């Protein structure tokens, strides 16, 4: 195989989710004005209070400036007037409640079951996972709703929640991420289209993993999803989130907001495998992933973030926890892999307000090619956080000599009894390791995958099993071309 063929082969394997679904879609005109915001709200048939919320956010956003503090010099200036803010598949008027077969095929191809499988009597197949599948600006299917509703669990698209559970949405929306929190959160608050809503009632242990899958399809669009998760007192939930997009030469914007409210004594585990199109080997195209995720923990509540970030041209993301209640705790486990010209600036904020609050941060950055990978994290001990503890570990692994790894930890401790620990390491995959593997017959690329998987093991082992297998595969695939 000559070099050209090899490169083609690698490029072909690189991003297998990069296809486009040919389907009739409805678009609104590109550009962003107050009219756009009103149009989106109208499309979704929203009540006045939500339109007011959007308009308020829009006005705030107009006065804000895009944050430039990320270590992301390849983040282009975004022309917000050149984006289409709403794209939805046209629903067949004769079959308003059915999923378009093309869409079903699309999600099938991505390995996302949008239809509940018929479970044969006596045959226990794979563990069940309820899915909310979002295609561009709308949710196209949410599975297992009936089984979940028997336990009082609400799991549906955000749009439907607004219609059917307005009181809940209104009670919790923007209580963790206020509309004016930051530039991209304000933008999202103004133009968000769809996303997932989940409510677990008091004392209920959710019987299956819930998940949202986000698919960008249409060109020239942005995706602005909004997820709101409420775990009421003493409940527990494992939530997973995945995403992909077609390969294109132009960047596409994804600016999401995720809010999680963890009430007294509740437990939420939130896992993300982020696999947006990362751009090509020359750094053309790719998703600009600029998202705000934050959770609020009440007394004795627990929130665990696990993320595997392998996609996107640009990642700007800091899943954070406000530890408001006494004895609440949170973890942030992250693996971020950047290759070619990808840039990631990701980390977390742990805001300790309550007494005896605990947080743990384990961040594993992997940089290859010409990429840049930054950990940015803040640990804040407020004056009332007596006896609070944080432990942070930030490791960086470098492959090759043209990439960068950076660590920006911010620590602010305002309580003398609170303790903050921070450790950081930087390492490389050594030639000796590669040679040792080669002597055993393991080629350099495969060895790199193995070594990186080992390096990330502590984080990967926190993911639900199917997700961990997927994440391992992604790490290997995204490393292709990084070695040798």
């Amino acid at each position, binding site marked *: 195989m000559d070099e050209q063929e090899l490169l083609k082969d690698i490029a072909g394997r690189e991003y297998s989710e990069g296809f486009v679904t040919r389907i009739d879609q409805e678009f609104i005109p590109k550009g962003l004005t107050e009219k756009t915001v009103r149009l989106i709200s109208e499309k979704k048939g929203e009540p006045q209070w939500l339109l007011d919320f959007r308009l308020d956010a829009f006005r705030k956003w107009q006065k804000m400036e895009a944050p430039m503090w990320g270590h992301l010099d390849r983040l282009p200036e975004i022309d917000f007037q050149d984006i289409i803010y709403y794209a939805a598949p046209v629903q067949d008027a004769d079959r308003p409640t059915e999923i378009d077969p093309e869409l079903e095929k699309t999600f099938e191809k991505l390995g996302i079951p949008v239809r509940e499988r018929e479970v044969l009597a006596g045959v226990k197949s794979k563990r069940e996972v309820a899915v909310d599948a979002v295609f561009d600006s709308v949710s196209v299917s949410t599975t297992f709703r009936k089984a979940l509703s028997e336990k009082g669990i609400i799991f549906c698209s955000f749009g439907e929640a607004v219609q059917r559970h307005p009181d809940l949405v209104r009670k919790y929306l923007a209580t963790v991420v206020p509309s004016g929190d930051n530039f991209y959160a304000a933008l999202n608050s103004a133009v968000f289209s769809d996303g997932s809503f989940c409510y677990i009632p008091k004392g209920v242990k959710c019987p299956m993993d819930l998940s949202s899958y986000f698919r960008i399809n249409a060109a020239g669009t942005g995706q602005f999803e909004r997820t709101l998760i409420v775990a009421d007192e003493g409940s527990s939930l494992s939530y997973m989130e995945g995403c992909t997009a077609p390969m294109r030469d132009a960047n596409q914007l994804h600016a999401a907001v995720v809010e999680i409210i963890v009430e007294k004594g509740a437990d939420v585990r939130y896992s993300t495998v982020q696999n947006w199109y990362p751009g090509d080997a020359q750094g053309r195209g790719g998703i600009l992933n600029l998202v705000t995720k934050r959770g609020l923990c009440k007394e004795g509540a627990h929130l665990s973030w696990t993320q595997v970030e392998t996609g996107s041209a640009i990642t700007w993301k800091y899943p954070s926890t406000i530890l408001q209640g006494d004895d609440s705790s949170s973890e942030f486990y992250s693996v971020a892999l950047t290759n070619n010209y990808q840039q990631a600036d990701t980390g977390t904020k742990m805001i300790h307000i309550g007494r005896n609050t605990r947080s743990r941060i384990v961040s594993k950055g992997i940089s290859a090619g010409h990429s840049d990978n930054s950990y940015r994290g803040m640990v804040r001990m407020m004056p009332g956080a007596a006896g609070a503890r944080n432990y942070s570990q930030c490791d960086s692994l470098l492959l090759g000599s043209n990439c960068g790894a950076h660590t920006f930890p911010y620590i602010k401790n305002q309580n003398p009894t609170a303790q903050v620990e921070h450790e950081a390491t930087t390492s490389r995959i050594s030639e000796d390791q590669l040679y040792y593997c*080669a002597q055993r017959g*393991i080629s350099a690329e495969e060895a790199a995958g193995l070594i990186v998987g080992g390096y990330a093991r502590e984080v990967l082992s926190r993911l639900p099993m199917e997700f961990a297998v997927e994440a391992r595969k992604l790490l290997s695939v995204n490393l292709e071309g990084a070695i040798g």
Partner: protein
Amino acid sequence: MDMLEIRNLHASVEGKEILRGVNLTVPAGEVHALMGPNGAGKSTLGAVLTGRPGYTVTEGSVLFKGQDLLSLKPEERSWAGLFMSFQYPVEIPGVSYSAFMKAALDARRRASGKDPLSASEFLKLLSDRMAFVQMKPEFAKREVNVGFSGGEKKRAEVFQMAMLNPDFSILDETDSGLDVDALKIVADGVNALRSPGKSALVITHYKRLLEMVRPDRVHVLKAGQVVAEGGFELVEQIENEGYDSIR
């Protein structure tokens, strides 16, 4: 047929010539010993044969089972049946021994167009070979060489040799720093491989391992050249009179 045929091999590291015309032949089915003082080039020979980066062959040839070895990539040499037990095995944090061995076995099976072993076949082989080197079952879950004692590392190398079942094994001072029990495990490993189609080159300073494996032939390397070849009497001579007695 000869397993390994080294002809006038010259090799250098960072511009310094270490091997200066090595001639050495190991026929199929034989175990040979390579002895020599520190700095003679023994480990360099192992590195050159296995294709370690940074070692440049400037002259000469190596035939492995009749095939030009030096044109192959390190992993291709492994697939062809060449194995080396390292003097200083590296650590691979986070990667379990079972995952490492699965990757190594799958790669060589793929190279010869075979499907990977099934999980149950693999586990059977794994536990069988672990028992052979007297490793406890937990060993399979341990990270490759991380936190291993010197003796454990060497045993783990012999375990890998047993797993991969190579045609030709180089044991680079695998006996150094081992107690008698561990030494016996290494010797048993080499002896178990003895068969008409398999060969080994045991690099060592010491007589005690060679007493257990009884090499068919002994080569002495000094200053980058093989200066003497013979039977076990050479081992005795070195043990009694030192390398200076050999010219």
